[in-house]
């Protein structure tokens, strides 16, 4: 395969890879299915035996159509956030069209640039592991293609220049001899590897030291970069993006009794990640209250040896009905620790710092002196805590937990209608407490939701009307939705009639693996439910989402590939925690570690050197003057070392220049001393811009020099003559001859060539 064909083939592969990058970044795999074969077909069409191509006018027309389509799309949805997507579309169209036409070297270069722009535009849109892998491969391939392009372009230009001859004189011009065989290819590949190595080193250094907080703020601690976990700290009823059927493993969970024996819990395990008390009807969004965000004040630092650290304000005395939950991360890099109700103690294998919201018992990682995200943690939990345990945990109940009412008045009307329909009184009875009323109402409303609403993840028919709250739409108009709608409706209904309730998001563990005796939690297990207050400290969980539907979805989504997902998920976790989540804090930790390591090493080295000097001084009993003597001896040794090195280097150079490597060892050593003048002369001539070529004899070199400067040539001729006599004539030069040769060398040193 010649150079041009090889370059074009790898350019095609590069473009296909760019298409794959765009497809992964935008999750539009149809792109790859449609544009990929077209680009592949272009190889057969343009480079094939028939060499067909689109005419230039057709390509220009196609480009105009692409511009028009992109422009119309931009007008239809003028969202600045789509600019990169539109740019990708535009570039993609151009690339595909250009692939179908005959190209010059200039247009080949444009294809490479367009491919680069396409990948850069995709980079802005995605941080996925798969995209990252494609990006790395693309970089390596791009280096190879660009290097091939440089060689191809240079050869093409040289050929064209050579062809610029008078008419019908082409037969007089000697052909350009360009060979690009396996040796050249191997050399190019080695160069690509070297360039890739350099690129990796430099790019990682720049990546690490690039200041993250110049224009954008560092990520808010606690939120973390885990945007792909399926879990969100907020519930947005307008957007349903979060709901996915992704089978990505988020973490695994083992439920153990106090003796450490793994067991299966008699029901799904709800793992709390965020407590949402505040509903904003303007944006239809649940969020934690500002007060709860500020409440993350209590810090705990579990010991790195794996011992438990209490989360409560006081030590827990009651040890009844306690279990251990061990969570091992697979792909999640969230700062939030997911815990079942109610967590009592926490243990980690690394020295990390966590912050606890004492009112909601939400825990999050706030380490500033560690790099990356945690790998695993253990929690001691008590699913049915007694009042004493809760008192020890919470201290005093928070004011926020008494929040009542709901900001959408229609919800109360609807709730009252429902309660009337099912015959439940929402007022506190004479012989019941408020907490009992709360339980009664929550039970009734949960039952109503389970009976009258349908669980669906596809919300394509859930058209939200202007001026109507989504919760009202769910309760009165559609009566279908996913867990967030169910939980939002129950929470809203409870709060509208004075029952204290809050929305909780996290994960539900349904999938139990008998072999590993652990639960596997996937992205699709992200869940939302409701907690209703049933005591001074007690909150009880109500999950209005139909359990049977959740389990059916779980079973329906299972496939044979689930068993192998952990390989990808592990890489994904590494990617997210080390690359995507690398932030200012990580930079600080790295800098601290690096400086500590280097300063420690330098201190150790200096210490050992000083100790060695002291011990030598003690051994020889030299006293304080001994240090001076040792310094003098050290300096002398170093001088001898440098001088010896210089002599060895000069001898090696003489042997190389005078080609006496093949002589006997003794003879070579003798010649190396005698022929030093020739090495000096050649070095001077090289500095003066007249180097001797390897294939040139000393005499031919002196003749060439005499063409330029006769006097210089004569001097070199004398030296060359002496060289021949010594090297081949067995002449042993006397001191006077060598001194004369040195004098000639000195005379060569001065003056410019040709003067």
């Amino acid at each position, binding site marked *: 395969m010649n*150079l041009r064909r090889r370059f074009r083939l790898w350019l095609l592969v590069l473009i296909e890879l760019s298409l794959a990058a765009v497809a992964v970044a935008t999750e539009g795999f149809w792109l790859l299915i449609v544009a990929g074969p077209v680009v592949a077909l272009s190889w057969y069409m343009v480079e094939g035996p028939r060499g067909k191509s689109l005419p230039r006018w057709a390509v220009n027309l196609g480009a105009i159509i692409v511009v028009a389509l992109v422009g119309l799309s931009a007008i239809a949805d003028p969202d600045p956030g789509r600019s990169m997507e539109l740019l990708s579309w535009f570039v993609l169209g151009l690339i595909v069209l250009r692939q179908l036409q005959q190209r010059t070297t200039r247009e080949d270069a444009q294809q490479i640039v367009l491919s680069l722009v396409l990948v*850069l535009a995709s*980079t*802005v849109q995605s*941080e996925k592991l798969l*995209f*990252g892998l494609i*990006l790395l491969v693309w*970089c390596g391939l791009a*280096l190879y293609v*660009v*290097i091939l*392009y*440089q*060689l191809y*372009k*240079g*050869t093409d230009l*040289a050929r064209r*220049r*050579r062809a610029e*001859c*008078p*008419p*019908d*004189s082409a037969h*007089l*011009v*000697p052909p350009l*001899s*360009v*060979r*690009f065989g396996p040796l050249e290819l191997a*050399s190019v590949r080695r*160069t690509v590897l*070297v*360039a890739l190595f*350099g*690129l990796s080193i*430099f*790019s990682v250094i*720049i*990546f690490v030291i*690039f*200041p*993250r907080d*110049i*224009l*954008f*703020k560092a990520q808010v601690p606690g939120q973390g970069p885990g945007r792909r976990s399926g879990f969100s700290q907020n519930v947005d009823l307008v957007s349903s993006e979060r709901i996915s059927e992704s089978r990505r493993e988020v973490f695994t969970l083992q439920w153990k009794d106090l003796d450490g024996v793994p067991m299966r819990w008699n029901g799904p395990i709800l793992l709390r990640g965020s407590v949402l008390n505040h509903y904003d009807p303007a944006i239809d969004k649940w969020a934690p209250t500002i007060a709860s965000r500020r409440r993350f004040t209590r810090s705990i630092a579990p010991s790195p040896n794996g011992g438990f650290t209490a989360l409560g304000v006081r030590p827990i005395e009651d040890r009844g009905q306690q279990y251990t939950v061990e969570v091992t991360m697979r792909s999640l890099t969230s700062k939030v620790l997911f815990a079942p109700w109610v967590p009592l103690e926490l243990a980690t294998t690394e020295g990390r710092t966590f912050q606890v919201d004492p009112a909601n018992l939400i825990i999050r990682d706030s380490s500033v002196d560690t790099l990356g995200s945690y790998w695993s943690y253990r929690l001691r939990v008590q699913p049915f805590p007694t009042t004493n345990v809760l008192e020890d945990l919470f201290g005093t109940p928070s004011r926020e937990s008494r929040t009542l009412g709901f900001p959408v008045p229609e919800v109360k009307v609807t709730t009252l209608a429902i309660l009337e329909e099912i015959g439940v009184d929402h007022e506190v009875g004479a012989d019941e407490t408020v907490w009992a009323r709360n339980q009664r109402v929550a039970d009734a409303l949960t039952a109503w939701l389970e009976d009258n609403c349908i669980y669906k993840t596809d919300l394509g028919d859930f058209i939200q009307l202007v001026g109507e709250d989504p919760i009202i739409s769910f309760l009165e108009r559609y009566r279908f939705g996913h867990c967030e709608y169910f939980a939002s409706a129950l929470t809203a209904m409870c709060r509208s009639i004075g029952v204290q309730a809050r929305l909780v998001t996290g994960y539900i563990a349904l999938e139990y693996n008998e072999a590993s005796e652990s639960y596997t939690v996937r992205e699709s297990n992200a869940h939302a439910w409701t907690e209703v207050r049933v005591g001074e400290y007690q909150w009880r969980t109500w999950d209005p989402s139909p359990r049977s539907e959740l389990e059916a979805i779980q079973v329906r989504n299972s496939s044979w590939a689930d068993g192998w997902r952990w390989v990808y998920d592990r890489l994904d976790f590494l990617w997210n925690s080390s*690359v*995507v989540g*690398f932030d200012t804090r990580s930079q600080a930790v790295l800098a601290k570690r690096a400086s500590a390591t280097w300063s420690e090493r330098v201190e150790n080295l200096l210490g050992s050197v000083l100790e060695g000097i002291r011990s030598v001084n003690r051994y020889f009993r030299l006293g304080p003057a001994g240090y001076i003597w040792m310094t003098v001896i050290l300096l002398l040794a170093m001088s001898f070392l440098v001088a010896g090195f210089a002599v060895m280097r000069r001898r090696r150079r003489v042997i190389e220049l005078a080609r006496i490597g093949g002589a006997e060892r003794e003879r070579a050593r003798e010649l190396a001393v005698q022929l030093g003048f020739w090495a000096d002369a050649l070095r001077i001539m090289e500095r003066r*811009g007249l*180097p001797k*070529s390897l*294939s040139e004899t000393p005499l031919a070199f002196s003749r*060439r020099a005499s063409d330029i400067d006769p006097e210089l040539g004569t001097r070199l001729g004398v030296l060359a003559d002496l060289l021949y006599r010594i090297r081949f004539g067995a002449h042993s030069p006397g001191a006077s001859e060598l001194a004369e040769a040195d004098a000639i060398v000195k005379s060569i040193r001065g003056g410019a*060539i*040709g003067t």
Partner: protein
Amino acid sequence: MRRRFHLNLPGLLFVALTLFVGFAAANRPNNLVVWSFGALLSLILVSGIISGSMMVRLRLSRLETGRAAVGDPFEIRYQLTNTSGLRSAFAVRVDEILRPSDTDRHEVLPVSGHAWTIRVAPGEEQVCDAVLWPRRRGVLNLHRVRLTSFFPFGLMGRSVELELPQRVLVHPRVHAVRPDLLRTAVTGELGGIRLSRLPGPGEDFYSVREFKPGDSIRQIAWKRLGCTEDLLVIQRSSSAPPRVRIVLDLSTPPADLRFEAENDLTSGDLEERAITMAASLIAEADKADHEYGLTVLGFEDKPIPMRRGHWHRERLMASLAEIDLGAERKPPLSTSMLDEERSACIVIHPGRIDTRKAPDRALHWTATRVEDVLDFKTTEEGTAEEAPSSRSPLGVPA
């Protein structure tokens, strides 16, 4: 030796793109964009390091140049040596750099061709060549050579300029002479076929000599065998080739040159035409195996005696190439030598014919009617060719 970095337009655009991505990286909390910025920046660094280290280890020398002639490709060969023991040198381009005076005044060598090598392996010596097309005859002083490489990524180039002075003679352009013109001119006068003074493969009797082993028995002089006991063989004479002397009359100073002003031709153009005519006649005489000599009137150069063969032709061409039309003109020497010479004589005048400067038997041709002598339809090699334009009297395309 002068080493320089070059940033070309793609390099500038790449730097601009890198800055843009850097701005995007600072503006957007996306670590992949940050990494992309790092990769782009690293690419510039790696490019500089690779190309710089590659060029440091390259050595260049110009080999002896071959013959240069107007209208013929002029091949300059270079020897590239990679002294590195590890790294190959890729995509190296070698350009000649002429002094501005050389290119402006004479336009001898418009530098467009360059030498190119795709790879020089570690420790390898490689020869590459550049093909150029000289425009005018004359002395060409090659001065500097530049080694350039934009390897590996074409973002920035590294060049090394070396002083490699060399003198090259550019011979005049040779056109085909009209068919039979030279034969007619030569054989009609004293230049016709004659007997040589030496024995050869002819038919006429030359002499007899003693028989030597190896002589053919057919050559034995059988009739003489009766008179003498020695065995003799007959030697035949050989015919000497026709002889022609070409006289280039440049004795008239250009200012005094008389000609009909036509097509913006200057006296200098006409003198160049005359030189081209002389060169073409020499080439034609050489091709026809004639003996030929050259006399240039107007300068102090001695007439070149009659000889034949490749080296003689090269000598005459070099003599024509070295003519400096800017030098002072001398009055022509006596034509007695021309009178005594038994050869045909063709005198070429740049302007009007002046018969006083040559023997009476001489043929006089003028450069103003070059098309009567030279056949512009075919070149020396027999290929088709366009007639010369007014500003390019030698018919060499720009």
